[in-house]
């Protein structure tokens, strides 16, 4: 008796993708030049044409943001700013399904995740920050902290709309205006968000969206009219930005890469731990900066847990992201797929043992089966370099101290996980771990009230919570 799940596709009819997009500047959609195709990574179908923003587009956008800041936004009370953000939050809730489908088409991630995780968090971010707009005196930054002015924001392709929310909501709540560049692979939900700004009657120029590639991003970073930069992306580009702004007055927050260690002690709640490991590395196809990509397993339970993990992985449903029962969607791009293939080949070459469940992968689109490597040591490339895919490297430890040392032995410091039923052990581990986010007996949990960001080469600053406001404000008296 097998229980096959019949196809359960979410309908695409709810989205209306234009053939071509320009930029959203000063409250209007302007035509762009130099278009490039954006595709659905699950099918390689072309979804639309996106404009490659150049220096003049960035100039226009920064000017609009500056004008909006000076003439309108800085003159509004926090109470009124907050109301715009509440409106945006509510409209996002109203149009939630539309955004979820569009994000799935553009990014390749499953509809279950966009519908149940990404989009609800997006609305929550705006809702949470709306409430801060008129309470900044209580943010721990003195009385009347002031915004910087115009923020330049560059976001990645792994959580397109959520990363937009993480950037735009606090920037606006604190009184800044914004020029935002979405990732070139995933610009569609940002462009649809511009419509929400119009529906919310957000004053012109408060939010500006300029699409493009790395050169567009560089134009934003280097623009003299940008006072504050917020970047989420690779550590490599983060370092470029740090170099570029050295010696200027520009402030920057950087949210970069990671190689999160997920430590499992032998007294962990085993079943839920397996679930947490799966969620930690296969959620969002592993395209997660804070992914639990290194499993550091107490030797005594390693065999038992790896067996359970394999049984569980065989149940992961890989396939059409628009099918409501899909767990693992498409890899976001051909480039990313090549990177994953390169690093996993290195894993094989360096002597780690690869395992994946049997998967029926479509010939079209970019796909990678959920994969684990056992017999991994710290020296392996797959233990040191961020793969950014559904690949888990498994190492073992004997003593708690050894687990911590291995976990911390990385230039990254974004996230870590600890699994144990013993409270004091969890708190001891969290105290030792050099990571900006530590999850105990859970993983990949996000909330607008919970600050997120990394130690060391995982970046500068925090997003979310009271701590996340600091980056967008100058301390008051």
């Amino acid at each position, binding site marked *: 008796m097998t*229980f096959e799940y019949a196809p359960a596709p979410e309908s695409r009819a709810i989205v209306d993708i234009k053939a071509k997009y320009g930029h959203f500047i000063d409250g209007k959609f302007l035509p762009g030049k130099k278009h490039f195709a954006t595709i659905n990574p699950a099918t390689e179908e072309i979804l639309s044409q996106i404009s490659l923003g150049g220096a003049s587009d960035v100039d226009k956008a920064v000017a609009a943001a500056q004008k909006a800041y000076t003439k309108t936004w800085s003159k509004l009370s926090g109470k009124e700013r907050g109301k715009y953000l509440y409106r945006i939050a509510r409209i996002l809730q109203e149009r939630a399904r539309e955004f979820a489908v569009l994000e799935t088409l553009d990014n390749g991630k499953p509809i279950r995740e966009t519908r149940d995780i990404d989009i609800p968090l997006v609305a929550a971010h705006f809702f949470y920050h709306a409430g801060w707009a008129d309470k900044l005196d209580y943010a721990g930054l003195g009385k009347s902290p002031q915004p910087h002015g115009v923020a330049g924001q560059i976001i990645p392709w792994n959580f397109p709309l959520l990363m937009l929310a993480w950037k735009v909501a606090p920037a606006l709540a604190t009184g800044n205006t914004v020029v935002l560049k979405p990732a070139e692979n995933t610009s569609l939900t940002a462009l649809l968000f511009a419509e929400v700004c119009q529906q919310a009657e957000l004053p012109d120029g408060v939010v500006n969206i300029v699409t493009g590639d790395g050169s567009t991003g560089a134009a934003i970073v280097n623009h003299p009219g940008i006072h504050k930069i917020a970047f989420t992306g690779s550590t490599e580009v983060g370092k470029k930005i740090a170099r570029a702004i050295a010696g200027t007055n520009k402030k920057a927050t950087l949210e970069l890469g990671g190689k999160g260690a997920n430590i499992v002690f032998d007294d962990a709640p085993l079943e*839920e731990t397996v679930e947490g490991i799966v969620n930690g590395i296969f959620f969002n196809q592993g395209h997660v900066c804070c992914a639990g990509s290194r499993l550091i397993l107490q030797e005594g339970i390693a065999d038992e847990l790896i067996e359970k993990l394999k049984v569980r992985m065989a149940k992961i449903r890989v396939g059409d992201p628009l099918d409501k029962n899909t767990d693992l969607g498409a890899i976001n791009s051909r480039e990313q797929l090549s990177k994953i293939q390169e690093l996993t080949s290195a894993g094989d070459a360096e002597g780690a043992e690869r395992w994946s469940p049997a998967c029926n992968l479509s010939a079209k689109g970019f796909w990678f089966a959920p994969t684990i490597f056992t017999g991994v040591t710290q020296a392996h490339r797959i233990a040191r370099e961020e793969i950014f895919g559904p690949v888990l490297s498994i190492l073992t430890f004997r003593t708690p101290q050894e687990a911590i040392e291995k976990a911390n032995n990385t230039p990254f410091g974004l996230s870590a996980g600890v699994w144990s*039923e013993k409270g004091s052990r969890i708190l001891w581990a969290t105290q030792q771990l050099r990571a900006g986010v530590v999850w105990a007996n859970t993983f990949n949990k996000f909330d607008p009230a919970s600050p997120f960001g990394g130690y060391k080469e995982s970046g500068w600053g925090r997003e979310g919570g009271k701590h996340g406001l600091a980056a967008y404000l100058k301390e008051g008296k």
Partner: protein
Amino acid sequence: MSFYGIVDGTESSLKHFLAQLPGVDQVGADARAAMLATRSIKTTSKRWAIDTAISMVDLTTLEGADTAGKVRALCSKAVRPDPTDQTVPSVGAICVYNDMVAIARTHLDAIGGKHVPVAAVSTAFPSGRASMAVKIQDTQDAIDAGAAEIDMVIDRGAFLSGEYGLVFDEIVKIREVCGDRAHLKVIFETGELVTYDNVRKASYLAMLAGADFIKTSTGKVAPAATPPVVLVMLEAVRDFYQMTQRRIGVKPAGGIRNTKDAIKQLVLVNETAGPEWLTPEYFRIGASALLNDLLMQRMKMDDGYYASPNYVTID
């Protein structure tokens, strides 16, 4: 007696075994159950799930006001849930109090329902508060009257006060009474056990003591068969099979009121214990109102429009 070679029948051996079971993280278990509840079961798989669920229903009446007439009506419904549609399968079993067993068995045999077993609740159901002698007699009476399945309750008071040996011994004794004439389901009353750790412990305790099925609830106490509770029990039977090569069944009872709930249970089975459990031999659903909702959903799938309670029979 050998308890799969895992415990030796003493309380200390049992306590030792139960103590080394990994704990259940409540939040994690809830999250896993909630995620599985998002599965979208449509078209052909939904149709299959509905028929499978019907065949797994233990159609139940356990009221003080039960009469011969009520039980006979239930039996008719059990054999032919929809008199206008012969393709609807019979249910998994009839479940009644032990003094109704003979009536049920006779009537079932008379109406072409020889293939439908009669399950009897036993051991001072639902409270479990009576002497061992009474519990044994209760069980014996039911089997003599024709019950092929016994649904016993554990002594929750003993369990909650840590007297695992007592709980274990009672199950062993009732299993002896069942012999090879009846299969034994052991009811935990998970709403009273409260924690998932207790549910896991009770699962292993019952299986080691000889249960053929582990069952969530009497249906008299809420919460009953919540998805995380069923999840923990399915994990236990899965792992027990790994350890012993013996497949134990699971029966959620109580709170499964409509087709959506029933399909969620089947998804839990499918993705936890596995498809080998997706048969009435290893999975039953204790319910009464559920059957009509399954029938209405079945009608809607066949006819293409929404059904009405007027078109299904009451029992």
